[in-house]
């Protein structure tokens, strides 16, 4: 966990002062979006009404503006962890067109310039474990231990206040999953945190299958043992697999058309590895079971969520299988064997999960959705090397969910999900001031008021 000064240095000098350099009162009053005329090397473009003007939430119906975001530093959080100083990000049609140094990238005509001098641009963060994208009353049906056929898509509420708070914390993509009161509570949905309709926000549906193996389902009925819970989950998935192979055989002309099942049809994508199973799993026995049952036996694309308590001793096993481990909401574990407080991320790393596969989650509303970056702060506070903090918030969860081709880093061609921060988001004194989702300004602390 060496902390290279090279990494740290920009943080030390990163100004916490207003980015515009003006007096703070003026800074609050002045919209972040600079008058187009003032933009360097750019001619004024039509300034869409509302943006940078009235404090209101944009709508997807409005055409995506072309933006030139000028910042002091871009943390691309790409695979090569590239950092671009004095950079400009060009955004067009909701996607990132280009990321480069201001000296090298000319801002074309018609681009609205966002003056983020002094700020850092980082990718919008990705939360793999969220319950607030929909109505909280829709969390869980809780009828059976496993409930195939339920889908959180139908609970998505883009106008949700929690989602707006997420924007204020620089969180732009969340996996909305049903609750963990039973073993299998339905499919999750990956959404953006900005948009007006369900169609606007959905990135992928189903985003994942939610399975909960520990913590809450034990309370089902009058208490149910591990062996039955796991048998039941396995049995459901085996039925789904059987269903899928029957359909596959039919589609490949090898068999009769099977009867459609509303319960199992959704599983076809899971078994084809089009989306993962995200598992609420914690404590050693249960995570070991997750690995051996869902990953080894059933061959599913398995992502560990929660990953808490002594489960962090299984790092060698997850590394062997190249699995993603997403940690949270607990950040620490009191290790009775060694009598110390162990940072969970650091422990996973120590025991072998060292292949850049560690992410963090909030389990919002357990932790407020906008506090996702603080999860990385905590992980670093308790021993995760600092350079892994930002990836744990963006790249790793995006990769874990298989959406890294769209989100999780600032690279040309990706969704323009960009957050401007006063400094390193892993530093708790940094704040998010400006958030772009799908190339649209979704949060501007100047015009909308600073939420957080």
């Amino acid at each position: 966990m060496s902390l290279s000064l090279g990494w740290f240095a920009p943080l030390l000098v990163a100004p916490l002062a207003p980015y515009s350099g003006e007096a703070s009162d003026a800074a609050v009053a002045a919209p972040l979006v600079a008058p187009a005329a003032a933009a360097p090397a750019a001619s004024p473009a039509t300034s869409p009404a509302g943006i940078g003007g009235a404090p209101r939430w944009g709508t997807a119906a409005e055409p995506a503006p072309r933006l030139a975001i000028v910042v002091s530093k871009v943390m691309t959080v790409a695979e090569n962890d590239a950092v671009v100083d004095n950079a400009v990000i060009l955004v067009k049609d909701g996607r990132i067109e280009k990321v480069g140094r201001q000296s090298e990238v000319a801002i074309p005509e018609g681009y609205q310039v966002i003056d983020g001098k002094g700020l850092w641009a980082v990718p919008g963060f990705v939360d793999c474990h969220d319950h607030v994208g929909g109505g909280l009353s829709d969390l869980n049906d809780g009828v059976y231990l496993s409930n195939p056929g339920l889908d959180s898509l139908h609970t998505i509420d883009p106008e949700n206040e929690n989602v707006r708070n997420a924007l204020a914390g620089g969180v732009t993509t969340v996996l909305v999953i049903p609750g963990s009161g039973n073993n299998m509570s339905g499919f999750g949905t990956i959404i953006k945190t900005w948009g007006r309709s369900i169609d606007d926000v959905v990135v992928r549906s189903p985003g994942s299958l939610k399975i909960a193996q520990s913590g809450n389902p034990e309370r089902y009925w009058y208490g149910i043992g591990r062996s039955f819970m796991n048998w039941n989950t396995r049995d459901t998935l085996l039925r789904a697999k059987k269903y899928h192979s029957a359909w596959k055989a039919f589609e490949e002309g090898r068999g009769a058309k099977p009867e459609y099942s509303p319960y199992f049809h959704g599983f076809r994508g899971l078994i084809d590895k089009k989306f993962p199973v995200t598992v609420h799993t914690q404590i050693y026995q249960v995570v070991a079971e997750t690995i051996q049952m869902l990953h080894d036996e059933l061959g599913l694309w398995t992502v560990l969520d929660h990953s808490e308590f002594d489960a962090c001793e299984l790092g060698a096993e997850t590394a062997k299988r190249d699995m993603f481990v997403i940690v949270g909401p607990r950040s620490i574990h009191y290790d009775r064997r060694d009598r110390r407080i162990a940072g969970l991320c650091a422990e996973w790393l120590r025991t072998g999960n060292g292949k850049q596969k560690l992410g963090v989650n909030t389990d919002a509303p357990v932790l407020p959705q906008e506090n996702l970056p603080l999860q990385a702060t905590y992980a670093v506070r308790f021993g995760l090397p600092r350079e892994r903090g930002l990836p744990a918030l963006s790249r790793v969860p995006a990769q874990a969910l298989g959406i890294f081709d769209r989100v999780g880093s600032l690279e040309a061609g990706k969704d323009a999900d960009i957050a401007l921060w006063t400094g390193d988001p892993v530093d708790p004194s940094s704040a998010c001031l400006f958030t772009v989702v799908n190339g649209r300004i979704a949060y501007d602390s100047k015009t909308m008021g600073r939420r957080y």
Partner: protein
Amino acid sequence: MVLSSLLAASLLAATTALGDSAAVRGGTILQPDGTRIEKGIVVIEDGKVTAVGGPETPIPAAATVLEADGKVVFPGMILAHTQVGLDIPNENMPIAPFVNVYDSIEPNSAEYEECLRTGITTVHAIQGNNTVIGGLSRIIRPQGDMVEYMTVRPDYALKISITPRNGFNRMTQLAELRRAFADLKAHVDAVAERRYEEEQKKKEEKVLVLPDEAAKQGLAHVTIDDLDARWRTLWRASKGEIPLFVHCDRAMDVSNGIAWLREAKLLEKAVFVVGTEAHKAAGALKQAGRPVILSGALVHKETDPLTGKESEVFVPKVFADAGLPFVLQPNGFAFNADGLLWYQAARCVREGVARDVALKSVTQWAADAIGMGDTLGSIAPGKWGNVAILSGDPLDQATVVEKLLLEGRLAYDRATDRRLKELATGQELAAPSAEAAPTAAPAAPAAPAAPATEPPAAPPAGGGSGSGK
């Protein structure tokens, strides 16, 4: 290696390979039958004992030698029926032949540490005394990061309880048991009938028979995959493919159990798990000729309803006097006196049971009860190298396990047992250095050293990685 010992805060990962071969030299080799070899040598190669003898026994040049001068070398003890290390075992779903203790084993349980610390090298994990049909068990080593590394025999036995579960009576219990088998038969018949029809469809000349006949003829075509997952284990059990651990708390349950087993033609597959009162059925059990595992409570107390006179019976003595082999298990686990397996055996000697009988009841007979009598239970060529190096006689109060070999690998060493450091030194130990730890290489999982009689569960599949797209 300092780093690895720091990392091995968990004893589960602490197995140290001694190389392909190991030898224990200079100790008194004590066998369960009471025979001793002074200054003996045990040679273990590839996890199996290859030689046992006096000081003249040749030691292979490559072998790692463990000196045991003044120590006692004793076979690893066996928990033949236990819930040690299970996380929320199923004790409430009554008809659960399909569940598997595999899904409940907690490899990180400190109870497995305690097994090693007290000289136990083999654990038969089984649940379901409080059910009717309690699911499949597994024989494991008490060490390993994942269940598959721990596994000695997967899906070994099925638990059946003749004693009524809490809140039910014996009539219900037996009725539910019979009904489960009847339901199984109905299911298999239905599948067989369907299979018969399927087979008929393939033929040019179709023969129509009555359903009963179709089921009978179709049975030959039924494979286990045709059955509903819930019935597969019970089907195998009904055909006598799986040992049955039959829980009979009282003597009357023994009678009921034997009757039912005869009826189901499964007596030959039975192992009886009995309570203290069942000593009254020692004769019937002897006649049945199947292994008997005693409950942890060894004393049966009874009050004469007429005279109010209390009487106590030391149960193992009854079985010993009847010439019936029995297996001991601890009462609870660890910390209590009778939570320790060796102590249970020592109690037997105290109460007049012959010493060799007491020793066998925690080793050889326990191995027999779990069908591994040829593999475990004593130190003999061909058997597995599960050997404890003790500071003294196994039944002596002051004796401690100094080292434990699990299939020829050093699985426990008292000298490095962190849990006992404060007791040994009077100094609380500081936690391992947090700085040193992350740089250490991950401990390799304790892969089985010896060729298991049955291979462990399939190795992790390479596919299904979550690398995204």
